[in-house]
């Protein structure tokens, strides 16, 4: 199994370590590789980390990777997107303060995402979220200038809610979280994603 991490910007090293540990917990062999160019897309699953979605989109499009990744994801390549990654996945994206702004995105998941939903860094927080659908119980996680998933439709289904918004959503081979499992002490989200990749 080969898991790629989109490694331009953001929490890519943290995702790599958390994926490595999840594989160890599950007793699986697997390779974790950074994805930056088209040729790196030869993977069984890919993680889009947290970061600035504008930066990730601009760089991915400049490197010619965005369209290729979109095509592969549409063909069923499993994708985990956390925070900025969830924004990249959403079909509907707006910003809490400045409204709609055009930015390069994948736009493949039936979710409506609002950027900077909670406000600025001052409003960033840690809280307990319910990972029981992922067999993880309650876990302490951080939300950093987090977006919120306000609406899901079609085949998208909620796996966890927090204060009235969706924080984990799954649609087929796509998984989105608005918080940062890569900065938490649990590997449950990564284990869940790896089992999606194995299917």
């Amino acid at each position, binding site marked *: 199994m080969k898991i790629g991490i989109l490694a331009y910007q953001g929490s890519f090293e943290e995702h790599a370590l958390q994926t490595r540990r999840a594989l160890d917990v599950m007793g699986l062999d697997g390779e974790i590789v950074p994805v930056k160019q088209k040729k790196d897309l030869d993977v069984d699953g890919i993680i889009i980390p947290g970061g600035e979605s504008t930066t990730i989109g601009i760089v991915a499009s400049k490197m010619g990777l965005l369209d290729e990744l979109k095509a592969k994801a549409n063909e069923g390549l499993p994708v985990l997107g956390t925070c900025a990654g969830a924004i990249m996945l959403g079909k509907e994206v707006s910003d809490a303060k400045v409204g709609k702004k055009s930015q390069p995105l994948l736009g493949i998941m039936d979710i409506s995402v609002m950027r900077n939903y909670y406000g600025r860094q001052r409003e960033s927080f840690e809280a307990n979220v319910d990972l029981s659908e992922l067999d993880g119980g309650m876990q302490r996680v*951080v939300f*950093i200038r987090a977006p919120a998933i306000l609406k899901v439709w079609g085949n998208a289904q909620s796996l966890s809610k927090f204060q009235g918004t969706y924080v984990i959503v799954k649609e087929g081979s796509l998984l989105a979280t608005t918080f940062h499992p890569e900065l938490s002490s649990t590997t449950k989200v990564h284990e869940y994603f790896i089992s999606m990749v194995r299917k």
Partner: protein
Amino acid sequence: MRLYELSFSEIEDFFYKLAELKDVLRDRDLLTYLPQREIPEVAHGTARVKHAFPIFQKGGVIMDVTSVEQASIAENAGATSVMVLDKLPYDVRKSGGVARMADPKVIEDVMSSITIPVMAKVRIGHYYEAKVLEALGVDTIDESEVLTPADDEHHINKWEFQVPFVNGARSLEEALRRITEGSSMIRTKGEPGTGNVSEAVKHMKIMNSELNMIARMNEEDRVKKAREFQVPYELVELTAKLGRLPVVNFAAGGIATPADAALMMWLGADGIFVGSGIFKSQDPDIRARSIVIATAGWEYPEVVLEAQKMINEQKSMMGIDVKTLKPEELMQVRDT
């Protein structure tokens, strides 16, 4: 992409266990793991939340701006944050006088016009400029040697704030002291406003060789080093085990071209600050974009080459040879 021995959450556990921090944090309800306390459902401004923010800047470029127009150029180019100043470091150098924090009205205008994080600088030790910026709601405060220091003896106690701080450092010793004071992010100082990357290179290399040094030391020498550095022994131990700073570490000071940015990434920087390099050039739009591309794709010389071709060397800022600066003109020596 590097794999470390410790995860973010383990590093945070360490910070929470550091005895020095406990008392301050407990008083301020920022400690959430202590069993005798009821854990608040939602906690803002904790060490974990503050240390997490800079992680999402990694691989990115943070650009100095002085106006809404420049901030918009930076955002469209793919900057991960902007840093609002009254004057660019180059102009601070030229104009002399006392350099203070930027006008809050300008910072506010920038905050309401773009979607990426907004940072701003305060004078070293100026607790109240920092309190003002916290009240304003900036995403990160840079306690910066580019401005005229307000306190020659002390830095701000950054544990007291809910917003993260970034501080400059020329060596591991300075970096660990700032982390002990509560800084959530470190950057090399370099020599700001010169368009000359040589001092940033020097500071990053000093840091790297000191990291190697403490990793090879035995325990009693590390104890001695911790005393010399004036930081907790446990922090030296953690840093040695990680083989890097336990917080995000950017390069800053004199970066002016895509190749400069790639050089600093190659030396191990987590990301790049560009000060005067963009808006003191004659091609800011395209230069900003090219530095973003080179920083994200630094491992590939062909990507950096393409970025470098986007700009015109004739339009780079003229720059200042650091050797021609008088000792009193150096900004990097303003704090230790």
